[in-house]
Structure formats: C-alpha cells, structure tokens
C-alpha cells in the first residue's frame, strides 16, 4: 500500500472535485479524500460539476464518464476550454479505445478503471500531486527569468531544482549533477567572519532564522575562483505547494565586480564606487531587502526600516512608514544604511511624496563617510532651560546652546574658547536645569570646529552609575517630549 502519510503531506493544501452519479461510490470517495485534501467538493453530474468548478476552482477534478444531464467527456471539454491547467482523472467502467484516445486528446492525467482499486488510486494521486509540485517549482523559477539572480529551490535543505543561471555558474547540466558533486550546499560556502558562513554559526541556521534578509557569501565557481555573492532565502509560499515548511528558495547575485571582499581591499575610484552603489541598491530593490533609514528631529534619531521602491542613476524612491516619511519631509534628506552597502547613502531633496503609498522620491543620492547610523547612543536636544558651563584651566565659559546630549557626549556652541583648549583637553562640565537636573563631571574634548560666528565643541565623558542614572531619566523624559512634539507636527 502506498504511504498514506505521503498523500496527506502532498494533498493538504489542494481542493479536489469529484463528479460521480453513483451515490455509494461518491460517498466513499468523499470520505477517503477528506482525510487528505484541504477541501473536497462533490457533484452528481457534469452540469453540477461545472457549476462547482466555476465557484471554487479546484486544482484536481475526478470524474466519471457516463452520467445523466451532462456526461463526463462533455464536462471535461467545457473545463478544458476555460482552464487548460486543471488536472483531471477519469474513473470509468468503460475502457474502450475511443474514450481512451479522447481522454489523451483532452490532456487527462490518468484513466482509472472501475471497480476502483484503492492502492492504485492512492498511487495515482501521489504521482499527480508530485507532478503538480514540480510544475509549481518550475513556474517559480520562471518568475526569476530575466533577472540577474541565480535561483535554487531546496527542500529539507537539499537542492531540488535550479535556474539555468545557477547551473551555468557551476558549469553543470542539471541539479542531480550538482548534488553529486557538492552533496548539499554545505561545502560550497567559504568561511569568512561577518559573512553567511563563519565559525560562530551554521550557515543553514543563520539563513533559516533570518528569512528574507540578505547575506554575503563567498563561494568558489566552476573554475575554482572565489566569488562574492549576495544571497537571500525565501520561504516557499505557493498555494499549489504542500505546506512543507522546510522548502525554501535561495536567490543569489554575483557581486564580485564590486571588489568588496576583504582580500580585494584597494583604492576604488569614486565612479566605480557609484556604479557599485547603483548595482547594490538595485539588488536590494529586486530582492525586496530591508534597509535602515535615518533622520533626526531636534537631536533625536528617528529610524525605521524601509524598502527601495525604485532606483536609477539619479533618482531613488523609498517606501517606509508614516513617521519616517514625516521626518524625511521635514529634513528634506534621509540616510540609507545596509550592511550590504560599502558606505551609507544620503538621499537629498524630496521630489515627490506619496502619502497614500508611503513612497518618497528623492532627487539625488551619493555615498557618505560620516553617517548618523554610526551613532551608538540616543541623543536629544535639551530644553531651553538647560544651561551648560565648560571649565578649562579655571576659566569657565557658558555654552550659547546645547545642540544635543547623550549619556556619553555633549555637543554645544560657544562664542569664545578658553585659551589652549584642543582635542583631548580635560574639562569640567556643569549641566543645570531650572528646578531639575544638576550634574558636574569631567569630560574630554573630542572635536572642535569653527563656524562663521561661533565654535562647535563635542566633549565625551564616562559617567559612573550615580551620575548616569539622572541623566538617563532626563534624556528619557526629554525624548518623550520630543516624540510628542514630532507626532503633532
């Protein structure tokens, strides 16, 4: 007896229609198929069958030939006229050649003779469902045709089907040859920290735990040359396929030309880097990969995930949630961060803002060296009632304005600087809020730069728990105020 478990696994997401005028047989078939299929529909003749088919669009139809009202052959002809893909099985006591030829002409999958042998029936259903799964996978692969991606479908972590581009990459003819040569994908990925396959985690675990995230991978091609790939796994979610949770599609693109591999570190021209950026942004777009978007509101970082909706050499459109879109609108720029980009990208000047679709089109973009994504801690612009004094060699200066503050740094503007103040100088800082926070601590000057009328100074510090706690509370409250303010913009 064929394995009924196999049938259950394969059939669980499909709908089947039985058309049979023999009531006893119809009931028996119905009871049997209900154990395996998602939905079982039944009709007593072709006319009723056609009506149910139009309503429910089952993927499989099992029909008798001789029936009242509308016979099986007329029923199949009408079905085929509307749907050349539906799978049909004939169950009939008539097995003369004329019927057989017509069945072949109409693309019937099998002609089964009554009385029905359960074992043969089950085996036929399993074969049919396997064929349907295979066709669905091929359909899936076809949807990737024309893109730069190499695609491979894996079930239980073993490749079962691959696109021509994938096979060409390894100079192989089919997936069997691939499996023979490589076993599974395990031996393919070369170890590299920060990449998909590193010492700390199995690549499969990492990939499966991070579905729909892009990873970098190093791999050897058919000539043994090291290639740099971007790779992403998608869970296989197709209604035609059974609910096999271990089935995944791996989509890869070869980006060796970007020269981003550690051993390729060398000077890359600005033009080449721009070309590389367009290519990576395009990859992120095609794969629907998430990127991080960064903006500020009065010192506070507003970040969210987003997707690239469109990219060309001189335009980029980003899809993100309403709050981030509001921040982009307010600032007229946004920074994109992705571990797959060589550097962060700043997009400037809003060209179009579609609030319904949450898509913002920006007029230009380019790579930047210094980025808000590098901020390690939350900063806020304090309220006007916060005063700051900076003392160096017993000379104290009042800050004109505190630009922003975090638990380990403060940025302020000063009209004049104490003599001799430079990067690394040790200073005493006093923060005082009317009727609130008062803190005094030592800090080190990290950066000083001159503006037209004033100096901007950044000082870093390392507070002990006793001093850090009130500052965390202050920043937390201030953050809440700024969020409220931002939401009401």
């Amino acid at each position: 007896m064929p394995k009924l478990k196999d049938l259950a696994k394969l059939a669980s997401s499909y709908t089947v229609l039985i058309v049979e005028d023999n009531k006893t047989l119809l009931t028996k078939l119905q009871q049997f198929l209900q154990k395996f299929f998602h939905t079982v529909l039944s009709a007593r003749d072709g006319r009723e069958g056609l009506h149910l088919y139009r309503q429910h669009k089952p993927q499989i139809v099992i029909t008798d030939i001789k029936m009242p009202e509308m016979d099986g052959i007329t029923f199949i002809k009408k079905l085929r006229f509307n749907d050349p893909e539906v799978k049909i099985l004939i169950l009939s006591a008539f097995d003369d050649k004329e019927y057989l030829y017509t069945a072949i002409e109409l693309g019937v999958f099998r002609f089964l003779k009554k009385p029905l042998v359960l074992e043969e029936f089950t085996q036929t259903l399993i074969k049919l469902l396997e064929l349907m799964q295979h066709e669905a996978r091929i359909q899936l692969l076809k949807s990737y045709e024309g893109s730069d991606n190499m695609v491979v479908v894996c079930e239980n972590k073993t490749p079962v089907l691959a696109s021509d581009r994938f096979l060409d990459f390894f100079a192989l003819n089919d997936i069997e040859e691939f499996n023979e040569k490589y076993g599974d994908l395990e031996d393919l990925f070369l170890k590299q920290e920060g990449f998909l396959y590193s010492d700390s985690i199995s690549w499969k675990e990492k990939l499966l735990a991070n579905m729909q995230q892009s990873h970098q991978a190093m791999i050897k091609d058919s000539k043994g040359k090291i290639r740099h790939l971007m790779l992403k796994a998608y869970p296989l979610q197709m209604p035609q396929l059974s609910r096999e949770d271990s089935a995944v599609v791996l989509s890869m693109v070869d980006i060796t030309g970007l020269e981003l591999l550690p051993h390729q570190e060398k000077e890359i021209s600005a033009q080449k880097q721009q070309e590389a950026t367009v290519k990576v942004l395009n990859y992120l777009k095609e794969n629907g990969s998430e990127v991080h978007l960064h903006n500020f509101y009065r010192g506070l970082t507003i970040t969210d995930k987003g997707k690239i909706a469109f990219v060309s050499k001189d335009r980029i459109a980003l899809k993100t949630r309403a709050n981030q879109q509001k921040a982009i609108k307010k600032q007229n720029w946004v920074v994109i961060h992705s571990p797959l980009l060589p550097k962060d990208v700043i997009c400037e000047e809003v060209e179009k803002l579609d609030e319904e679709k949450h898509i913002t089109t920006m007029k230009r973009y380019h790579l930047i060296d210094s980025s808000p994504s590098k901020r390690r801690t939350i900063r806020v612009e304090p309220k006007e009632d916060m005063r700051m004094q900076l003392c160096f060699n017993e000379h104290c200066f009042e800050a004109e304005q505190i630009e922003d503050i975090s638990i380990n740094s403060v940025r302020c503007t000063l009209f004049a600087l104490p003599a001799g103040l430079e990067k690394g100088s040790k200073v005493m800082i006093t923060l005082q809020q009317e009727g609130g926070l008062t803190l005094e601590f030592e800090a080190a000057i990290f950066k000083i730069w001159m503006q037209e009328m004033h100096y901007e100074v950044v000082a870093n510090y390392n507070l002990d728990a006793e001093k850090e706690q009130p500052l965390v509370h202050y920043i937390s409250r201030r953050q809440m105020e700024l969020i409220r303010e931002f939401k009401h913009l």
Partner: protein
Amino acid sequence: MGKEQILYDDGTHKCIMFSLDDEEVEDFFLSVNQFLIIQNNSAVLIDPGSEAVYEELREAVSKHISLDRIKYIFFSHQDPDVAASITHWSIATQAEFIISKLWIRFLSHYGFMEMSRLLPLEDGGAKIGFGQEYLRFVPAHFLHSPGNFSLYDSRSQILFSGDIGAAIVPNDTLNNEAKSFHNRLEYLEPFHKRYMAGNRACRKWSSEVRKLPLKAIAPQHGAPFDTAEDISAFLEWFEGLQCGMDLED
C-alpha cells in the same frame, strides 16, 4: 525569595533571575521577575519591566556584564510591567529589541522612536543561533497577550514563559510553601482562568513546549518549576485548563 538567583551556570553560559519589582495586587505585593542570559561576552535581557525597576535592575545586571554587551532585549509582550522601561534601556545600551510585530506601533507611546533597532517577531516565532545552541521564540499567543512569546534557551534548557505559569502570590509566601506545583496551584488558578484566552491556546502552547527538552520553566511571577515532576504536573494542568472564553456563557 532572594532578589537574585542563578538558574544555570556552566562557565560560559549563565541564566540569572532577578526579582526586583513589586506590583500591588489587592492587599499584597507581587514580585516581578526579570531574566538575564549571558553567553560568553554577550547577553540577552528578558522582560526588564517598568521604569520603576530600571535603576535597580541596571545595577544588578552591571554586576554580571557591562551594559554595552547586552545584544538583545526581549519583551514577551507589551504590558508595562514587561516593556515600559524600553526608553531607559534604549538610552543606556545599544541593544536591539525583540517583540511581537503586533506591538511595534505601540512602542512610541513608551517613548521609543528608533524603529530600526526593533526586531519584530512574526507570529510563527524565530530562532537565534549561537554555536550549536540556540534561543527560540516560542509562540504563546493569547496567553494572555494576543502577540506573546516564550523564550527557550537550548543550552540551559530553561523556558522563560512570561505570564504562563505565573503565581500571583504574596512575596513573603514565595519559595517555601508555594514552590511545588501542587502547593502553588491555588495561586495559579485564579490568574490563569481570568487572563488566559481559552483552552485551545493553552493546548497549542503546551504541545509545542512538550517537544522541547526542559530543565525548568521560569515565569514572570513566582519561582521557576524546576523538577521533572513539577514541569509535567504544570503542563498537564495547563493543557486541561478551562479559562477565558471557555468560562463565558
């Protein structure tokens, strides 16, 4: 019960339970547990609680690991006694925050806007690997929150179950009398009957949990179930529990 209890320690992997917060329940105070998992030199903080407990918890955690080594902070659900301190932790650490995707849009009400630091959990859960071991976010929806997860640590084999298994018991009764499952039942029953949505959810969670090798189940309130008998008795009770909508007409 002490304010800190080491649940597991093998030299490279450590699980610590803190019981720092007190919620006022009717006429007594209820202790709230927070958990820390340390693997080598990085850590995961579980259900750090409200702003009221932030300072004390920060100090307690710092004794075990520097705050900048906290890689993830996991919230089993959105309640204030679980997640209200998110702003404080987002300022004091560089951690990423893990919570059901259902609650993402609510977090700005707690004063949090760095959405790219959030790792929203899909309903089916997720797994984070470390070496051969892993942390698994086990779906526990409707028990009691509609977007709710337990966290399973494969190395220690401890399941951090959030509100599931929580004993609403006065602090001074903890540990001794109310440690074994049978003695604890009277403190479990009223809470679970009212807060858990229905038996179907209880059975679904229990059947997932039964697939895991378990040394302990550590809830957000009360002591962990840490013997095979107690774990088994608890799961048997929980999967048979009539609660929530089961008890409505």
